[in-house]
């Protein structure tokens, strides 16, 4: 299938907010995307793969101004939240994933194998980052954002995947395969 070749399609959100699950859903639906599993192979934190480019280190390249976004027009790539701060002017459709912040921090600590002694401060900083990026992508006229809750996708996949399908606006996407892709067994680090 083909997406609009003049648009950069991006999946974003804080790290561990469900961005990989969104990429998996889009991949199942047949959306064109760029990723490599070699630089960051699937592991226990993400058994189905991260769907990232350059091991997720696109942020550094964006900060340095040497990431070639033109090369990825018409396909999805993953750029996590902080990287969006450095997006040059263009034309973007961004699916932005959000998740309970404590679940995100739990998952980050597990993945990085760290115990955060200043967890409250880290929590505040990531909440502020999320708010800043949220506002940024809503304000920029060259960005069309869709905000999706990871927790709500798992609660009611059909409704939320329909929103993604409508946002991408391509009848070539396989909606049934996208819906079937949601794997609730991977919902770990749950906070109630």
């Amino acid at each position, binding site marked *: 299938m083909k997406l609009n070749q003049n648009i950069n399609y991006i999946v974003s959100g804080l790290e561990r907010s469900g961005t990989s699950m969104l990429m998996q859903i889009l991949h199942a639906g047949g959306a064109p995307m760029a990723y490599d599993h070699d630089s960051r192979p699937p592991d226990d934190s993400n058994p189905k793969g991260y769907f990232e480019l350059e091991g*997720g280190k696109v942020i*550094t390249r964006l900060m340095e101004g040497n990431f070639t976004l033109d090369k990825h027009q018409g396909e999805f790539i993953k750029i996590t939240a*902080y990287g969006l701060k450095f997006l040059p002017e263009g034309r973007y459709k961004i699916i932005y994933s959000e998740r309970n912040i404590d679940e995100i921090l739990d998952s980050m600590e597990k993945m*990085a194998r760290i115990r955060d002694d200043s967890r409250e401060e880290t929590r505040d*900083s990531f909440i502020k*980052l999320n708010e800043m990026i949220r*506002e940024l992508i809503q304000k920029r006229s060259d960005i069309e954002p869709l905000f999706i809750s990871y927790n709500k996708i798992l609660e009611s996949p059909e409704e939320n995947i329909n929103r993604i399908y409508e946002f991408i606006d391509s009848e070539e996407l396989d909606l049934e395969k996208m819906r079937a892709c949601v794997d609730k067994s991977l919902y770990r680090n749950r906070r109630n």
Partner: protein
Amino acid sequence: MDKETKTVAIPISLVNQIEKKLKDSTFNSVEDYVADVLSKHLGVESKPESSFSEDDEEKVKARLKALGYMD
């Protein structure tokens, strides 16, 4: 948004309507929704660049490096 809060009573019928809206939004609670609507109504501009301080940015970068997302 300030961390300090104060309880304000609103009609239960409004709360019910907000709860219905939450299902189709990314707000996590009635409080978040009400605070957002009121901020917009009052023209309270949040200043993300200033609230996300250099100190916050350093903490975020350190975490991203620990996770392998930055060099």
